[in-house]
């Protein structure tokens, strides 16, 4: 952990400076975390709920952050878990499996006013939504966010080798489905 990051974490833990440091944290990371969440839950209103829950969770648990990983890795992990818990909760309420709920969301994307993509982009989102949950997370982080396998490994707590295999399978599946459509 870098010295500057340690100083920032200490400011987040100090009751006197916590609020100001937290404001800086939100300002710095809100967009990155939002887009990561948005690609998982697809819908803007859902992503808005999840990102707020994520930051509150970070605020309440920062004292327990032991600096074993980078601060952003820890935050990214919280965001990922909050998104998955959200999907799980929504799907359960509707009596659906997580996979079915997210596929239904992807099907309705073209009608979403906050989706700009064309037919090809929509198709890609539908195919990605059909991936198993972990493959979908890895694919989003690698393909859309451009993260390294090492960074993803820290966040999802999986080996780099397993991630490479997961991503390879995801890409193969997507290519097959897209080729079938076109």
């Amino acid at each position, binding site marked *: 952990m870098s010295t500057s990051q340690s100083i920032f974490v200490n400011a987040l833990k100090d*009751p*006197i400076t*916590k*609020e100001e440091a*937290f*404001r800086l944290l*939100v*300002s710095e990371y*809100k*967009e990155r975390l*939002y*887009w990561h969440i*948005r*690609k998982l839950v697809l819908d*803007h209103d859902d992503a*808005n709920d999840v*990102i*707020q829950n994520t*930051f*509150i969770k970070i*605020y*309440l648990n920062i004292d327990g952050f032991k600096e074993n990983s980078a601060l952003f890795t820890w935050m990214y992990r919280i965001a990922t878990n909050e998104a998955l818990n959200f999907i799980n909760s929504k799907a359960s309420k509707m009596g659906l499996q997580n996979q079915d709920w997210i596929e239904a969301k992807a099907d309705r994307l073209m009608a979403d006013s*906050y*989706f*700009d*993509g064309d037919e090809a*982009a*929509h198709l890609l*989102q539908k195919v990605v939504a059909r991936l198993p949950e972990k493959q979908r997370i890895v694919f989003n982080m690698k393909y859309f966010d451009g993260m390294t396998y090492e960074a993803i490994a820290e966040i999802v707590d999986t080996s780099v080798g397993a991630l490479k295999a997961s991503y390879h399978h995801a890409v193969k599946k997507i290519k097959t489905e897209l080729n079938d459509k076109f």
Partner: protein
Amino acid sequence: MDFNVPSGYFDTLEEAVVRKARSLTPPKTQERKATALYYFAGIAASLTLVFNLIQYQQNQVIEIEDQALNDYIESYYMDNLDSYEMLSMMEDAEIELLSDFSNKP
């Protein structure tokens, strides 16, 4: 990017999150400030007490040392002095006092 957000969304997001976080913590922050003040006051009082105790002990030591020196002079040193040596150590005023006594019948 195929997804977008409402105009100004990220600015409102920041304010909403900070407001929510602020609503969670004010009493603890004030409590901790008061507690810190009590800690400092306690430490200051303890230091004052320790300092006074050290001063008192030092004064005691000086007094004891003076007393020990007087005891030595009276008990040991003076026993080995003859009257001529004793007189040589006394002030003139003290000798006159003695001579007053020696004239008593």
